[in-house]
């Protein structure tokens, strides 16, 4: 049975490339969803994740470079 109202099942997270300072916290926290390049920057530019995991990631980024994006 479906709930009448529910949270979005996926959230999209994008990387603000100007803000990102290669802390790499996202790679550690994301369980493999984020990989880093040789310079320490995320290879992925957007991630589709369960909302709770997305929230944890966004809050974990010390540079506030991970931004929520409403799925369109």
């Amino acid at each position, binding site marked *: 049975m479906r709930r009448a109202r529910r949270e979005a099942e996926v959230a999209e997270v*994008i990387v*603000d*490339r*100007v*803000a*990102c*300072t*290669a802390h790499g916290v996202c790679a550690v926290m994301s369980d493999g969803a984020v990989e880093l*390049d040789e*310079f*320490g*920057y995320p*290879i992925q*530019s957007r991630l589709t994740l369960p909302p709770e995991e997305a929230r944890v990631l966004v809050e974990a980024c010390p540079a506030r470079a991970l*931004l929520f*994006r409403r799925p369109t």
Partner: protein
Amino acid sequence: MSLTDLLDEAGLTGRGGAMFPTSVKLRAAFDNRAELIVNACDGEVGTHKDALVVAEHLRELEHGAGLVARKVHWAAHRGSDTEDRLLEAGLRVLSVPARYVASEESALVSLLHGGLARPVMRHEPIARGGRDSQGHRLRPTLVLNAETVWRISQIAQYGPGRFRGFGTPDEPGPRLVTIGGSVERPGVYDTAAGVPMRELLTAAGAFEVGAVGIGGLSGGWLSAGDAWSVAWSNAALAPHGLRTGTGAIHVLERSACPLQYVTRLARFAAGESAGQCGPCMFGVPAVATQVAQLADGALAYDEFALLQQRLRLLPGRGACRYPDGIAGFISSALRTFRADVEAHLAGACVAMKERAGAAR
């Protein structure tokens, strides 16, 4: 008929390289009462058409700009003749540092609103406004290339039918191209999509054609054989991974080592990254260094694999499309000059050898 409908019917696309339908940009701009920046920077390497439009068609340019917005800013590189001309005409000039990425759309908007001339991370069209990296609010601003604004004026004056009398049904309208390099008559030429490249090369007096660069630093390369046989249009260039872009055409002479030339541009590119986004700031110089090693015959096969991997990782990972353009440019060179690449990997330069052979 409204201006946007006219432009729709004419099929005008942006002449600054992106080829986006101008009417779509304009609708968003009108809805948001956006200011206009006319980009006359000729930001792409080897492009001089904006300068020509300002020098010879300023009145029509002003007319076109007036149709688009009440408040108009004229962007030109600091210290350029174009800037002088605009100032003399009493126009509101946005003086742009003479750097490659400084004339990128969002960099101009940022500069206009008191920020740095550096691209801004955008999550929606800048015509609706936005915020720069420091969080400052950017007023809704439309950026149009100078040639685009000139075309708007022409379409408003003479109608979309006349405009569509040039070019192809899919790529209508007159176009300006800038031809340089190994040619007797370098300069800006009036043409249209669909013209045989042979005609353009002949008009400019191309000689000793070894290869032809299309679209400057955000474009790529045609082999000499392809350059003489292909048409100049997005449709005809697409199979070669190229687009007409800003209309830059550079003839590389046969006796020159193409990899040396590509190295010069790659080194320039490394210095022009706006240094904001890690993947670009570190990736472009890393790639440029490897291209230089390749040209020197000092790149090993496994290092070449790393170069290709780095090139694959550049696109889509910056606030602007600069790294995408550079990656495309260098990848295209590695494909087009495959024989030279192989020879250099084996430690020898084909062009050098041929020149030595000819001298004998």
